[in-house]
């Protein structure tokens, strides 16, 4: 009697334990099938289908840089084919969504060269010519930072730390004067490298985790107002695909900052956070 209860309990426990594992595995297979279908639909130029499938992959939690990249491509091609068919390009905000997803892919993996290239090309299709040049130092810093992901920087920094400690050991334990000298300077340089790469990793991580940047996805006239009130004066009318920085939120309104530093208020439904 008792044994049977224990058996039942263990069976239930096993079931409970295996349930999340099973659903996770199901999720994975379904995401895989969506992914394959999406690739096939894209190859067959059925871009609306491809968009659906890649969106499903994202929904299932596989929001990788590649998924966002493929989704962005599908959106871009969908808008482009419509534009050649009807003459009105990117009528439903496909360009905005393409740019949003390229930005998301780059946020996940800033070193993804294909996404950077396609983003550059997609931005050419927007009417947004107001790009503000970055400062030389901050430009170099971002470009160096974005050449690797945060995790790569972390690994590099840990290797630098290991090497630093190894050289300190050589310095401390060696009898040979020249070896000690070399080890000493090498240890100093490696320690600087460690500090720098750690900083890069932290900076990259914070830029990856921030959700301050957003992309205009609405195709109809988006008006940026002077205050969070639709009757207030319209400052600007950004087209879809323009990237903004959200500085604060108030109800249904976001205060946004343009690349040139101008600020205004926009209804939250017009933009989507990267």
């Amino acid at each position, binding site marked *: 009697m008792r044994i049977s209860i224990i058996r039942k309990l263990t069976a239930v426990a096993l079931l409970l334990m295996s349930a999340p594992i099973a659903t996770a595995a199901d999720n994975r297979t379904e*995401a*895989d099938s969506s*992914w394959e279908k999406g*690739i096939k639909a*894209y*190859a067959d130029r059925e871009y609306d289908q491809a968009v659906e499938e890649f969106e499903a*992959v994202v929904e299932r*939690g*596989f*929001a*990788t*840089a*590649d*998924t966002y*990249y*493929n989704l962005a*491509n*599908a959106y*871009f*091609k969908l808008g482009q084919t419509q*534009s*050649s068919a009807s003459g009105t390009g990117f009528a439903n905000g496909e360009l905005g969504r393409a740019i949003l997803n390229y930005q998301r892919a780059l946020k*996940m993996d800033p070193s993804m060269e*294909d996404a950077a*290239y*396609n983003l550059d*090309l*997609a931005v*050419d299709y927007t009417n947004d010519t107001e790009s503000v040049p970055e400062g030389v130092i901050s430009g170099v810093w971002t470009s160096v930072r974005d050449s690797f992901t*945060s*995790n790569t*920087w*972390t*690994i590099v*920094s*840990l290797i630098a*730390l*290991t090497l630093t*400690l190894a050289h*300190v*050991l050589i310095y*401390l*334990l060696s009898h040979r004067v020249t070896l000690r000298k070399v080890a000493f300077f090498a240890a100093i340089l490696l320690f600087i490298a460690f500090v720098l790469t*750690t900083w890069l*990793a*932290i900076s*990259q*991580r914070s830029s*990856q*985790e921030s959700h301050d940047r957003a992309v205009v996805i609405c195709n109809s006239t988006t008006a940026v107002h002077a205050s969070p009130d639709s009757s207030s004066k319209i400052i600007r009318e950004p087209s879809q695909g323009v990237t903004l920085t959200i500085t604060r939120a108030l109800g249904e309104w976001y205060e946004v900052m343009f690349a040139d530093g101008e600020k205004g208020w926009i209804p939250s439904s017009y933009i989507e956070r990267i």
Partner: protein
Amino acid sequence: MKQAFLKRLYLTFAAMFCIATANAQVSFTAEAPTIVTLDDYFRIEFTVDAQPDNGSFRAPSFEGFDIVAGPSTSTGHSIQYINGRQSSSFSCTYTYLLKPNSTGTHTIAPASVAVDGKVYSTQPLLMEVVKEQNQSSGQSSAGNSNTNDPENSVKEEDVLLLLKLSDTEVYKGEPIHASLVLYTRTEIQDVSNWEMPSFEGFWSQELTTNSYPSRELYNGLVYDTHELKEYIISPQQSGKLQIDPVRLSIVVPVVIQNSRYIDPFMGGREVYYVTREIATPAQTVNVKEFPAGAPKSFAGAVGEFSMQCSMPEQSFAIHTSQAIELTIAGNGNLKFITAPELRLPESFELYEKKVTDNVKTSINGTSGNIVFTYPFVPRAAGEFTIEPIEFTYFDTESNSYKTLATDPMNISVVDDGSGSTHTQKADVDGYGRMKQLNRDIRYIHTDKLAEAAPMTLVLSPGYWLTIVVLIALFIVIYVIMRRRIRQNRNIVARRMKRADKIAVQRLRIAQSYMQQNNRHAFYEELLRAVWGYISDKFNIPVSNLTKETIREEFYRRNISATDAEEFCEVISRADEAQYTPSSDGDMNEIYTDAIDIISRIESAAK
């Protein structure tokens, strides 16, 4: 003198004139209305544009007509100087006033006239004589009315506006010739207030009209006709299409005999201008549906066409922009032809089509050609076959669909490595986007779906753990190494301390061998004692021991060079003596020298 000159000049002119007239082609024409009513009096004029020979005119017999008056002859002569050039014209007209005496078609036989002895004759004229149905009103309304009301004097049927359509049963897209014709039985002063036809549901194009006024029998009445406008229209939808009436106002001068006031000079006539609004009757065109069973490639083209396809090259580099040109020529609704579908292999990117038309609209519809340019960029190398392009039109002659197809084209795309840097641009103008032809988004990533995004490592517990482990490892290694070094150092120190004792022990053994007179064993033990001493004392591995290293080591430790030399000498003497037979005294001497040098080094190295 002067008069004589003028006379000569005149004669010269006269002579020139004669030559001019003699050389000119003489035309002799007869002119008369084509349709007359039985009650009409009408004129027939025979005109010759040269001086006819006297009395040479022979009039035809006007069968079916009564000659009311004539012939009356009139001549006209004019000389023109334009830019110093002289031109002259001469005309002689014989006019008869005739009245038909029977209905039917009558032929007026040719008249003849002689010019400079040569006989010319006119073409025979065909004339139709009709009897108008409503004779009394027809005759009385001809502009000369006796009634005093000018408004009533212009009858409804005197002025008509008609839109004549070449066909009212057509297929969608089939061209129809429409002409707007004004029918009048009275003089017209002015036409105003045009209201242009709208042709709703039709595509329309106006043609340039250059027709002459003529006469026509309509509803039993004879009218003068003027073609006002000509159009080519083609229906754009099927079903019954109504063409809205076309309206315009005309002004008719009416001459009224004024009975009250009789002007002795002008005959008491007054001219009134009567304005009339006239409109065409509404017309419907029945646009028929195309028969069932249209091929897939049919897109509404109607008429008769031919198709030609050209490909600039058979072989080209990857990633370069190329274009296929498709020319459709013929007669029909060319302007409404949509580009036939071009199916390219998967790896080809097809861009926006460009359409150029060279179309003329004439009375028979639109004709000419239309060129579709399909720009594309191959993205993969290899041999490809472009499927035939199909184009179907509806032939109104045979009421059937006809399909034209191009030949399949074989092309080869070569990857010469320079493709991506190729900067050849499509020469398609008018499309801003086309400038980016060589630039398109890169293809999607087709690798297997990666795991969900990995967590960030930096500042994570694992990261801190790794750093702690590294530092701990560092400390552990340092401590262990430190201890081992210290131990090593102790061993060396002990060995150094014990170096002389070991040497002494070995030397003692050597001494016992010396007493046994065992030379070989003695030298061996002696050398071992000396080498071993140096090895232990200066912490040099035995394998590294040579005389040179010993000298270096002595120098490094500030032991005098003579000691070094002496030490080396002992070693070399022992080496030599080991294998050479020698006296006992040698052994003793070398033994004391060895003890001596070791003790000296021992004291120096302290």
